[in-house]
Structure formats: C-alpha cells, structure tokens
C-alpha cells in the first residue's frame, strides 16, 4: 500500500501483534492525531498570538505560568473548565447549549479535509473543496444561534452582524476559489496542491497567476474569522463581547477553540490554494536530496511535507496576528460596502485572469 502503512505493520510485527489489529488501528490513528493536534495547536496559537502582540507593543506577554509563559493557555483552559456554566434567564436553553457545539464540530471535520502531506489526506473526495467551503461557513451558524439564544441585546446585534458579514464575505472567497479551480482543473485539494508542483519550487504556485485572488481571500478569510479589523460581531468596545457576551465556562471555551482552530484551518486553506500546500519551496525534497531514494528517505518525505505545510501556515498565521496588532476596526456598514464594491469585483476580475491564463496555457 504505502510506506507509512508498511512501516506501521513492521513495527507491530516486531512486538508480535496480529496484522488484523493494524487494519483496525491504522485508519483510526489519523483521527486521534487530528483531535490531539487541534487542541495542541489551539493552545499554542493563543499563546503565540499573545506573545507576538506583546512583542509588537513592547511588552513581554504572558510569562508567569511555566517556563517563558508556555503553560499560560493550559492554565486558562483549566480555569474555564472550572467555571460555572451560566444560562441567562429568558434564554433558549436548548439552543444556548447547542450553539457552541454547532460551531465546534465542523471545525474537526475541516481539519480532516486538509491535505497535510501526500498520504495524510483523509477525506480526499473528488470535490472536497466544496465540502471545505460549506464546513468553513458552519461556525457562523453556531455564532448566530448562540447570539440569538442568549436573550441579550448586545449578543443579538453581534450575531446579526456575524451573519451579514459571513454572507458578504463568502462570495469573494467563492469567486477567488473558482479561479483556482479553473487553474488546477480540479475540485480536490490534493489535486490542487499537486497542480502547483514544479522543479523550480514556487514557480507554479497559484499565488503568481492569481495574486489578486490571494489578496481577496486573505482579507475575506480574516473577515470570516471575525478577526480584527473585521471583528465586529464581538467588538468589545461597542458590544461588550458581542455574540458571546452571555457565555461562560466550557461553552465559552468551545467558541474560543472554534475561533482559533478555524484560524489555523483557514490559513492552511490559503496555503493549499495559493502557496503550494505541502510542496517543498525548493522543488525537490531535502530528505531525497540528502538520503537518496531509499525507503527511509521516502518515509521522511512525508514528515518533510508536513513540515513545509505547517511552516507556510505559520507564516500566514503570523500575518493574521500582525494585521490584528496594526489596524483599528471597520464600521459595520462600511465593512459590507467594502466587500460588495471592492472585494467582489476584484475576485471576478481574478476569475477572468485565471481563465485567460488557462486558455492561453492550454493553447500553447
């Protein structure tokens, strides 16, 4: 089958496990890895954001819990677990409890769709790009329900803003993604990644032909994540905390995890579409260059691919955090105007450019 599977069976055989066990465990492993990876990533990302914001504003950031503040988010998570789950009087109890779950569950699925390397690609259906776009929209539904169910005026304004914002920013994303689909002739994220491979490294990355699309998606994704400067649904200086004003304890923590894991997923999505996904920026893989074409080298390639994938994602995440550190918040009406009058036309222009490039490239 593949190198990783063979290596796994060999490992089990070494300790005298039956081969049937490997058949059961092997497909389950990736899901465990994703569930663990998601939580670790969120813990890391929250800390990284606070640290980077701290450095930008000439502070130290969290530095009390653990070495260099590394355990700060763990402590925060523990605190949230210990807190009481308060349901406000007059709130719709069922929806109020359901909303964080509606926001959180799609995120796990989104993480499963992303191709982390050539083998670790769990839901490689022919059109999983569409599935991704669908799932990436789902957390907004949870936000809306949560705000609506809390029976608070600030929450409802926040949730109405969230839904208006999501609708306006879905379209530019969809149109820009369409340009990529035209370029790659595929709706599968792995195929899109592979379509960007070349011996010259970044030469065929889609960020070059679809640069406008890259900018549009970058901006729209920030808006869809409700991050600064588009953090209107939870604008703390206007709406106290927006849609999650009434949330506390674990329910709040679920919204929080959703926010940050979606941030990672969307950054990874940008990497897959525009920056060559898990492909090496040098053309060939370093492990092949160093160790030749041995089996060990070929297994190492998977880890190297994941390394490149994560590295590129972290660069995008770093940009997200820098944007947050720099800009003030937009006004709600100007935010929608910005999407419909600037981003949407730009994304359509980008689609035409992509089509033109594809036609000329096909003719040559």
């Amino acid at each position, binding site marked *: 089958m593949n190198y990783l599977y063979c290596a796994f069976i060999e490992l089990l055989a070494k300790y005298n496990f039956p081969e049937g066990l490997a058949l059961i465990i092997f497909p389950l492993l990736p899901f465990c890895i994703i569930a663990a990876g998601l939580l670790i990533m969120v813990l890391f990302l929250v800390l990284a954001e606070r640290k980077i914001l701290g450095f930008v504003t000439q502070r130290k950031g969290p530095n009390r819990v653990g070495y260099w503040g590394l355990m700060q988010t763990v402590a925060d998570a523990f605190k949230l677990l210990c807190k009481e789950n308060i349901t406000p009087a007059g709130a719709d109890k069922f929806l109020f409890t359901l909303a964080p779950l509606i926001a959180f569950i799609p995120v796990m699925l989104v993480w499963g769709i992303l191709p982390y390397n050539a083998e670790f690609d769990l839901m490689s259906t022919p059109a999983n790009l569409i599935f991704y776009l669908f799932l990436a929209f789902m957390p907004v539904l949870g936000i809306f329900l949560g705000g609506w169910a809390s029976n608070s005026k600030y929450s409802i304004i926040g949730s109405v803003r969230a839904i208006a914002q999501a609708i306006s920013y879905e379209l530019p994303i969809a149109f820009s993604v369409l340009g990529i689909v035209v370029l790659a002739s595929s709706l599968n994220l792995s195929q899109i990644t592979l379509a960007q491979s070349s011996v010259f490294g970044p030469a065929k990355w889609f960020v070059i032909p679809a640069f406008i699309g890259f900018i549009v998606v970058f901006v729209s994704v920030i808006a869809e994540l409700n991050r600064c400067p588009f953090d209107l649904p939870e604008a703390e200086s206007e709406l106290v905390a927006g849609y999650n004003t009434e949330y506390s304890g674990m329910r709040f923590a679920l919204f929080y995890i959703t926010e940050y894991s979606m941030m990672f997923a969307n950054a990874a999505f940008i990497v897959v579409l525009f920056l060559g996904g898990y492909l090496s920026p040098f053309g060939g893989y370093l492990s092949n260059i160093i160790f030749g074409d041995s089996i060990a080298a070929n297994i190492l390639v998977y880890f190297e691919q994941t390394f490149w994938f994560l590295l590129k994602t972290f660069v995008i995440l770093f940009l997200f955090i820098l944007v947050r550190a720099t800009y*003030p918040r937009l006004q709600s009406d100007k935010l929608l105007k910005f999407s419909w009058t600037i981003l949407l036309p730009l994304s359509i222009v980008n689609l035409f450019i992509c089509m033109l490039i594809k036609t000329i490239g096909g003719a040559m």
Partner: protein
Amino acid sequence: MSRMKLNLGPQHPSTHGVLRLILDVDGEKISGCEPVIGYLHRGMEKMAEGMTYLQYLPTVDRIDYLSGFFNSFAYVSAVEKLLKLEIPERASIIRVLLMELNRIASHLLWLGTYLLDLGAVSPFFYTFRERELILNYFEKISGQRMMYNYFVFGGVRHDIEFLNEIAPMVKTIVEKLGDYEKLLTDNPIFISRTKNTGILSREEALAYSITGPNLRASNSHLDFRSQSDLYKNFEFKIAKADEGDCFARYKVRLDEIRESSKIIYQAVDFLAATTGDVNTGLKPLNLKIDHGEAFADVETPRGLTTCCIKSDGTDKPYRVKWRTGSFYAVQILPKLLIGNMISDVMAIYGSLDVMLPEVDR
C-alpha cells in the same frame, strides 16, 4: 431587532468610567440618545464648604485625575485673587511648564484610549510608554504620579528639580508623535472611521458652549491661553482645524502636543537661566479670607475650566463652583449621535475626550 432601547453603560468597556447612554436603535441606526450622568458624583463642590481652604487643595486634583495641575491651578489662582497675592514670575513659569507637560500626558492617554475604542490594540501601549516618561518626572518632583498637590497659594511647593531631563523627554515624545502619525493619519480604516463622522459646526459648538480642542476642531480660534497673562511671554500657535469631524479633533490634539512642546522648551530655557523665589512664603494653615468672590479660568486639555469661590470671612469657602469642559461635551452627544450607526458611538464619544469624573465632580 427592528426597534429597541439599548442601555449602553454605566458599566461598559469603552465609556471610560460610568457614563450611561440610553440609545434608541433602529437596527444599527441610532434614532435617540439620552446621556445619564451622576454615577461618579463625589460632591466636590459641597465638600468644599466643610473644609478649610488648605484642606480642599489636595482634593481638587481628583476633579479630573488626568490633568491634576490644571484643577489645582484654577483653585489656587482663584484663592490668590481673593487674597490679592502677587505670585513670583518664576513660580508662574513653573506652573506653565508643568501644565503643558500635563496637557501632553493627557492628550497621549486620549490618543491611546481612543484608538482602543476604535479597536486598535497597540497604539494604547505606545502612547502609555511615552506618557510614562512624563508621569515619572511628575513623581520625581511632586512625589505623586497623578494627584500632585504641588501648587500652593502664592506659588509652587518648592523649586523645580531635574530641569535638564525635560527637554530630551519632550524631544522623544515629539519624535514618537511622527510614528503615531505614520500608523494612523494615513491609515485608510482610521480615516474611514473618523472623517465625516460626528461633524460639529462652529455655531453649534458655540451654542452648546463647547470649549477646548473640540471647539478648535470646528474652525474656531478660541483658546483661553491666548488671552491669559500667564502665557503672554510665550510664542506658540493655536492648533486649529476646519472640518469639525472626529479626524479634525484628532489632528488638533496632535498639533497641540507639538505646540505644548514649544512652550515647554521656552519655559525650560527661562527657568535654567534665572533664579528666584517660587512662592510668597504665605502660611496657609489658618487662612481666613474676607467677604468676596473671585473666579479663575484655565484652558485644560478638555476645555475651559473655571473655579469660582465665594468667601465669607471664615476659614472655609462659602461656596465653590466648578465649570468643566467635559460636562458640556456630554450635552452635545445626542445631537451628534442621532442618525449614526452603533459603531460610530465610540468613534464620536471617544473623540470628544469626555472625562467622567470631571462631568460629575
């Protein structure tokens, strides 16, 4: 959520204190606004009637805790007018120097918190970094960072120290001001939030007796400093803008920091070159003031502050009345807010630089 009443405050992240706004909102549009004040009322005026003149002196710093020197100055000079005291020139120059430093500190804090209201996190820390320099200096000379109690009847408590530290400090602040401008003045989001929002015309501003930077942003030259004897030896321009919107108020405050720095340089040069008494040596412990009434004005960072004292021959004032700039700025809020969006509330309210302790006193 077509039409509803939204109760903004008194506990709200960006009312900077305890202002309560009862907003009628139609969707996100504001159709009515009623400011409710009084949540920070400490009875500053009534309190004076039970205290001697000297006992009241430390409390006036608390009227507006971001510009303590100005409040001290208004009270102290009103008392001096009642006593018909001539204060030494060196003392009045020291007062000007400290007040202008205080003005810079106050405007820097405004800039940081205003950007925080607009949703930008980092400028807050940058402006606080520079404000810290000034507060550290104030701590060195008066022992306090915000409640100075440094001005006394007839001058200042003692001669100014660490004079050579002021010029480099102000120079750094003015340099950093250029950095803020790079970050903000050309920032498209900042411009779109502040330009053409909350336009206050000159006539309206005068009719509502708005003073200070809010008025000067609406095409007016009115600055009490230009008429005051205190500033007659200093060369400086009155910072002013024509548009009357939030951006103009931002520009005026930034320009005022630059103009204040010019005054500070001149004052430092004068103080370094001369020596002399810094107070009249008045012993204020059992101070009794004859029947009389006097008032003193001062141009604070938030407008014209007036302290009016009526004395009745005892050691306690018969009545003290304060007029502060922020009180009038709150009055104009309904006029400016109606027709705007909820997200403009903070942009407009923040740009007026309302200080709640000053409103309620």
